[in-house]
């Protein structure tokens, strides 16, 4: 049964089929191109789906319908939007640093793409399975802030500059909390490899196995990752009622769309990491000794489990955004440095103690 859901069979089959008529180098190149194409497609679909989801979720919270005209229930709305954005004139203001201005979307997308590479979607469906997976994702995803800083600075616009400065202070601060809350779980798993972390949750998710410290870590992760992706209530870098559009005020057309896309991709990435580390990744939900229940759960393919959990996390983040007012910059930094960071440090110690004594399940 389990073999049915194991994607490594599929990938091996493709590998063997390619090897039958190509040289080893040719196989490698072909596979790379296939993976690249697959991820580009995934990225595009992800953007379309998430933008649509955001608009529908916000409509749901605001007691309205959301997009309804283009396609059934407005499903084709985002495609129409993409076409519109493609046909928009790219405007660069004359005071801007043109090279850096054009470079910024590349950097921000590159960070999102490279972080996406390490996500374990299902058993055997993971492009790059590093043994330092978490460190890698934390490192790469924080590259995005360089893109934001570049965008804000190169625009030569005061709103953009303030937005970029805010984003800088915010993202690097919350970077710490994201890393530390993930490390709380790493203490128990003893590995940074994402696939190993998922496998270690076969008999229960770390959120439940790790007692209260794991739950605290999960909450901190939720807050910090929302802040790290620059989403409301932490969208100070954009803050449309204060800075018009913050760091991307001067961007138009498709370049603007790439910032947007990267924001949604980042949201997906942090949700996926959260789901992987705390909620068992693609592992189905198992409850103790309920054999029947566990067996039924096993029938649901892992890929659904993974996307289900990610969707749940994304929904949470959208819920935050459409409910809370925005924080102020000093409150934002106070929250991180005076609350989340000390709590996090103590939390890791408690978790280490639990791991030492063996109190976790």
């Amino acid at each position, binding site marked *: 049964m389990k073999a049915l859901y194991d994607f490594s069979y599929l990938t091996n089959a493709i590998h063997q089929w390619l090897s039958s008529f190509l040289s080893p180098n040719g196989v490698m190149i072909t596979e790379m191109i296939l993976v690249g194409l697959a991820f580009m497609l995934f990225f595009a679909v992800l953007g379309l789906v998430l933008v649509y989801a955001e608009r529908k979720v*916000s409509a749901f*919270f*605001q*007691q*309205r319908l959301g997009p309804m005209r283009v396609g059934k229930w407005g499903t084709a709305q985002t495609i129409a939007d993409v076409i519109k954005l493609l046909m928009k004139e790219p405007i660069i203001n004359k005071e801007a640093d043109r090279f850096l201005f054009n470079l910024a979307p590349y950097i921000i997308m590159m960070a999102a793409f490279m972080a996406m590479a390490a996500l374990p979607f299902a058993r055997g469906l993971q492009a790059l399975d590093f043994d330092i997976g978490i460190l890698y994702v934390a490192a790469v995803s924080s590259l995005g802030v360089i893109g934001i800083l570049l965008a804000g600075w190169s625009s030569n616009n*005061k*709103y953009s500059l*303030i937005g970029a400065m805010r984003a800088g202070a915010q993202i690097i601060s919350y970077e710490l909390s994201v890393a530390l809350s993930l490390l709380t779980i790493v203490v128990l798993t003893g590995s940074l490899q994402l696939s190993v972390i998922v496998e270690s949750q076969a008999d229960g998710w770390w959120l439940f196995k790790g007692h209260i410290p794991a739950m605290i870590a999960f909450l901190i992760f939720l807050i910090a990752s929302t802040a790290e992706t620059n989403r*409301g*209530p932490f*969208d*100070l870098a954009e*803050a*449309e*009622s*204060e*800075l*018009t559009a913050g760091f991307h005020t001067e961007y138009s057309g498709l370049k603007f769309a790439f910032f947007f896309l990267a924001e949604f991709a980042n949201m997906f990435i942090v949700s996926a990491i959260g789901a992987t580390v705390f909620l068992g990744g693609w592992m189905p939900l198992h409850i103790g000794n309920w054999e029947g229940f566990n067996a039924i759960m096993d029938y649901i393919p892992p890929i659904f489990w993974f996307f289900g959990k990610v969707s749940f996390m994304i929904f949470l983040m959208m819920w935050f955004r*459409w*409910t*809370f*007012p*925005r*924080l*102020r*910059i*000093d*409150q934002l930094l106070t929250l991180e440095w005076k609350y989340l960071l000390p709590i996090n440090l103590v939390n890791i110690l408690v978790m280490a103690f639990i791991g030492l004594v063996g109190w976790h399940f």
Partner: protein
Amino acid sequence: MDEVIAQALESQEYFINMGPQHPSTHGVLRLVLSLDGEIIRKVEPHIGYIHRSIEKMCEHDSYQQIVHLTDRMDYLSCHINNEAVCLAVEMGLQVEVPERVKVIRTIIGELTRLSSHQLWWGVMGMDLGAITTFLYGFRDREMITDIFEETCGARLTMNYNVPGGLMFDIHPNFQKRTKEFVTHFRKKLPEYDDLLSNNVIFRERTIGIGKLSKEDAISYGVTGPTGRASGFSCDVRKHHPYSAYDKVQFNEILRTEGDCFARYQCRIAEMWESLSIIEQLIDNIPEGPFKAPTKAVIKLPKGEWYQKVETARGEFGVYIISEGQKSPYRLKFRSPGFSNLSALDHMARGAKIADLVAIMSTIDLVIPDIDR
């Protein structure tokens, strides 16, 4: 040496134009901010982008025409503005309007105040980044504008008052629908608290921000909920009752903190008071004519009159100087927003950009009201 370093670390003071095309200036207001990093050193309002010189226009218009010009000032309290001009003209003519008119004017005035506060509440949340409130505010406001549409034919600039009374009688459905609205809104108003007032981020963003002491409020002439939040008892409805306000029981909402949150609470509490005023009057609209007889061409005798009313933003005054002609010799509108705006610089100095947005939002500026 320390001073040299401190000076070198100080950022250069720089200027940002906030407005005229800015999401949170609520119209074409332009603020020139001098900033030090995120901290505001000075706010300089530049107004007049939609100045139409209504006062000059009034010098050529008949009194009936003047009434509808006031719609275009504070368009969210248009009915109350109309009422002010009508009351001033009636005072000049020494016409006693029928009781029915007084009661209807009061009810619609309170409905106007409610709809204005609902819109303010929605926008306030939006300014602080909670976009959802806007839709909630508009959901309830819709019911009021529907009532207006039925009775006055217009949803926003109603122009329902004429000197001497009302343009026509209320719609037969008016009482029923108003009562429906009051019961509906009594249930929905606690939702406002759930969504915004009790939110911890919202409280952090507003408590202690943009303080205005009572003395400053009086000195700057800050009226309305903005002034009352500082403890300045300035409710015209209490101090100089007009229309039917002397017949109803209501409280003047006063707070002493003078910060953004106090101003917020003032308006929320005022909504409850408005509901209670409407409830007291809606079943007791006296029968009778809806208009006192007036001449087609109104000529006020030589003299001058000042009439103040309480709009949703504060004290609105009409000062008419007549030389006995069909148009006033001089007509001055004392608009609440104008005086309230003058205190903005005082409130915002030393605050951050985000605070300025909160302060502006709680002053509740309507730009046409300021520019006239």
